[in-house]
């Protein structure tokens, strides 16, 4: 029997990992000694950062979607299926469309984030988001029809995907409405759950003066408790109520139910050692990307770097050597500060971020990377 490596989830982390393993373990896979199976419930790979640009008419959903089969090395068994149960005792995965479970020797959970609008009463009815394809398309329609009033962006839940994206959205909206001559008639307010505009104090310190300079109102210590879609108000636990005409909300996030049911962690996230990425509640299980609770942002760059670490560790384990590769918290983000300028941050567990001065060059660097992302997914960049 070949040694089975099962990767659960074909987002950035799972796809980069699969291609990385295809290269590292090519001799073993070709000899039939190792099998790598990538399981995803969508035949397409979705690059979510594209969604930020859809509301402003700068990208279409198809720009962030490609068939997984075109991206994944032929050495990888691709199963378009849904895992319905993870049994870490028997080391088996139950699959919706398969009659027998898939046994594994090594499991990597890369199941990402899901949105949980239903945790805040009224949010699903009253709010819009750009953290889903359908949400981004609806948001585009809402923005196009908005000529006056109050745009409220509320970060309702953390942790959430791409911690910079709420800042980017208000910066881009400010710029977009200015270019269209509407900004004087549109008030923009940004709310955040803690006492500054971003979870990371260094990024908050950088962003706050830019928001003040751009007349973007800020409400901190705002933990949304409920939304009234009829009255168009959002109310916080702290007792603040805001009227809105358009509510752009970052909904609470969760992992996936099947991970929660397997008791690998809380809310569908997997508790891991933040350096080795090994699951803390089960043997021979790794988690990476959004699914892993490492404390670093839920961002594509994190999933990318973590995939490299897990690939090295699995290569060592398959070859009977001690695994020594570790993740150092490396995170890299471009941050749009408008429609033609961006900043850039890079940090890890030991070194805090220091945002670069916004420039047009960094904006084009971000857009260029988004195009070349498909090389990353293929394991080439």
């Amino acid at each position: 029997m070949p040694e089975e490596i099962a990767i659960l989830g074909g987002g950035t982390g799972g796809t980069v990992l699969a291609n990385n393993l295809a290269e590292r373990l090519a001799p073993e896979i070709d000899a039939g000694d190792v099998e790598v199976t990538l399981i995803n419930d969508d035949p397409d790979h979705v690059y979510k950062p594209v969604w930020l640009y859809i509301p402003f008419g700068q990208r279409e959903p198809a720009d962030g979607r490609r068939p997984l089969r075109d991206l994944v090395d032929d050495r990888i068994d691709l199963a378009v299926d849904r895992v319905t149960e993870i049994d870490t005792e028997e080391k088996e995965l139950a699959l919706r469309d398969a009659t027998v479970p898939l046994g594994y020797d090594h499991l990597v959970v890369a199941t990402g984030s899901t949105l949980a609008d239903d945790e805040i009463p009224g949010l699903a009815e009253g709010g819009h988001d750009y953290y889903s394809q359908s949400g981004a398309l609806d948001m585009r329609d809402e923005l196009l029809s908005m000529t006056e009033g109050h745009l409220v962006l509320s970060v309702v839940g953390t942790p959430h995907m791409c911690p910079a994206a709420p800042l980017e959205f208000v910066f881009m909206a400010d710029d977009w409405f200015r270019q269209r001559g509407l900004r004087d008639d549109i008030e923009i307010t940004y709310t955040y759950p803690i006492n500054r505009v971003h979870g990371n104090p260094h990024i908050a310190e950088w962003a706050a003066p830019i928001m003040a300079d751009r007349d973007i109102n800020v409400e901190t210590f705002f933990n949304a408790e409920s939304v009234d879609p009829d009255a168009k108000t959002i109310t916080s636990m702290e007792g603040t109520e805001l009227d809105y005409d358009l509510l752009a909300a970052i909904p609470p996030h969760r992992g996936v139910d099947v991970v929660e049911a397997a008791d690998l962690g809380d809310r569908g996230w997997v508790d891991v050692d933040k350096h080795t990425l090994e699951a803390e509640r089960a043997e021979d299980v790794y988690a990476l990307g959004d699914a892993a609770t490492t404390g670093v942002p839920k961002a594509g760059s994190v999933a990318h770097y973590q995939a490299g670490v897990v690939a090295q560790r699995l290569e060592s384990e398959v070859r009977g050597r001690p695994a020594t590769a570790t993740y150092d918290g490396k995170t890299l983000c471009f941050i749009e500060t408008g429609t033609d300028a961006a900043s850039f941050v890079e940090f890890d567990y030991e070194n805090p971020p220091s945002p670069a001065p916004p420039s047009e060059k960094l904006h084009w660097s971000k857009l260029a990377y988004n195009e070349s992302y498909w090389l990353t997914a293929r394991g080439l960049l």
Partner: protein
Amino acid sequence: MSTIDIEPTDTVDARGAACPGPLMDLIGRVRSASSGDVILLLSDNDQSLTDVSEWVDETGNELLAVDESGDDYGFYVEVA
């Protein structure tokens, strides 16, 4: 050695979480707590010393005590 003699209703272990994880974990638990519950938040992040006390002041909850005797911080928060 802690001398704090408070029996928490619930404990939130946010050790290892990067900022603002500990405060957000506390807020998440307060959302589902009842008035009078005491939540013990464990954090090893220095930023929690200011984040937690400022949020508690803002919301009218009460910070009963902070245990700084060990390697981690323990925040005892009574829900209003």
